[in-house]
């Protein structure tokens, strides 16, 4: 699976409904400094739409091999995160 892009969808909604933005649009991809050897990663924010057409900004992480960009796009493994786990983005009240 080394050539695969790992994608972690955290589902933590950052902002309230944004208006009529295209879902799946990448808002920001901030490179992660400390990554496992041979890997590179980005913290991403992107837009998604719920079943009532409301658009929200959500976060995730994208991890890919640190090597020359291949000629063929890499396959993607989307890991759907548990709600209890992403503590850094959870906001205790």
């Amino acid at each position: 699976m080394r050539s695969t892009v790992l994608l972690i969808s955290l589902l933590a909604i950052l902002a309230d409904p944004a208006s009529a933005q295209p879902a799946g649009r990448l808002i920001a991809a901030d490179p992660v400094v400390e990554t496992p050897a041979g890997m590179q990663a980005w913290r991403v924010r992107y837009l998604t739409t719920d079943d009532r057409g409301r658009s929200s900004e959500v976060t995730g992480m994208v991890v890919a091999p640190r090597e020359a960009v291949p000629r063929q796009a890499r396959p993607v493994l989307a890991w759907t995160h548990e709600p209890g786990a992403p503590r850094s983005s959870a906001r205790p009240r």
Partner: protein
Amino acid sequence: MHPYLVGTVTARSVLDAVRAAGAIPGAAAGRRFAVWGESQGGHAALWTGQLARVDGAGLQLVGVAAGAPPTDLAGNFRQAGNANAKAFLTALAADSWSRYYGVPLRLGARRTPGIMQRMARNCVSVDSTPRLGALLGILALRQDLRRVDFPATAPWSSYVAANSASPVSQVPVLIAQARADPLVAPAVTRQFARRLCANRVPVRWIDLRGKDHATTARQSAPETLQWIEARFAGARAPTDCGPI
């Protein structure tokens, strides 16, 4: 906040994440993808499979892998083996659904909603050893919910139905399940797998010994990754539909 057990939202955010990843040049992420998750993440993975055809325009899903996924939610709420886990699951779902669907959190006794909100919003992990405060909350909840059949109580019953996974899939499915999982009842998962089989979905079933819910994905990772790799390679999907 995390929409917990809201199928469409979690699935769409996964599909949109794959699209968003494609916009990072260095990642070289393609349009072919597999989805894998554990517990509520397994539920999200199954829902991604369900919506991929309708909402996944431009993307190509090759397989769905789920570890200990809630599936038929009424069954999951009723049959969770451990009473604490059951109360916790109810609190997470009721709090999430009340916020997502905009309905008041009314359930049990007068103190119950407050307990549920505190529990759900403190980001307590299902599997961590609870602190004393959380433990007392769980005991109070168990007391309050003793005579409540959550999946049969309006309006929750409709959200239970709306967010249950359908036993259909366009792509092969892998399910890993611990035999004595105290939170996600193995019988419910097994029944879901059988129904997938009845609908002619190739199902790979990984039966894990023991009762460890939280390590379902870790325990089944080598086999699951191998299975996912084979889906990307276009191999014929194996099926365990006979022995499940």
